[in-house]
């Protein structure tokens, strides 16, 4: 129940294209869903996050779509750039901050 599933494992997108990464969870107690971006040799950096009271959140080229009934959320990167090439982790936690659970990650490569 603590697991967060993430797909695809790897993704190759042409520059200017849309990158879409999907996550799903089981634990209905989760109420905070962040996305992290990690470059090689660096720690994960918070990219964008959403709480279940909204269905979508947009920050620049990055959008989270959230489907509470399906227990799914996704990250959309519009106009993908080579500099977006990194590993992306979705995560989930509950209001008590316990067991901050990460998905297994998606390695994104944006081709120039």
């Amino acid at each position, binding site marked *: 129940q603590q697991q967060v599933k993430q797909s695809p494992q790897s993704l190759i997108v042409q520059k200017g294209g849309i990158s879409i990464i999907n996550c799903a969870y089981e634990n209905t107690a989760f109420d905070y869903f962040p996305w992290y971006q990690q470059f090689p040799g660096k720690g994960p950096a918070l990219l964008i996050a959403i709480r279940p009271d909204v269905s979508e959140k947009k920050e620049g080229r990055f959008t989270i779509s959230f489907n509470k009934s399906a227990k799914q959320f996704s990250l959309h990167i519009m106009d993908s750039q080579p500099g977006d090439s990194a590993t992306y982790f979705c995560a989930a936690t509950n*209001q008590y901050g316990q067991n901050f659970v*990460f998905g297994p990650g998606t390695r994104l490569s944006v081709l120039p």
Partner: protein
Amino acid sequence: DAMVIQNPRYQVTQFGKPVTLSCSQTLNHNVMYWYQQKSSQAPKLLFHYYDKDFNNEADTPDNFQSRRPNTSFCFLDIRSPGLGDAAMYLCATSRDVTGSGYTFGSGTRLTVV
């Protein structure tokens, strides 16, 4: 800039020789976490401190210990490193247990020889 700082960036230790990794934060966050991240895997939570209260994950080996002498510093002690403990160790902080303001350090890459 307020941040989470991990030292050293790279640490090489001998098999079985105790090693300590350090983390400091200028964010004045209440919660500090230690994660282990192996190559191409998600970070795995080892334990966290809420203020001085220590919370160990059930599957964290006894070989891993932690200390938090004050709000700003937290240490990860590996008592007898094995080859399987080679990994990136990430420190993170958050304002409170809701996870708000969750911030990672850049990590320490540990090599065991």
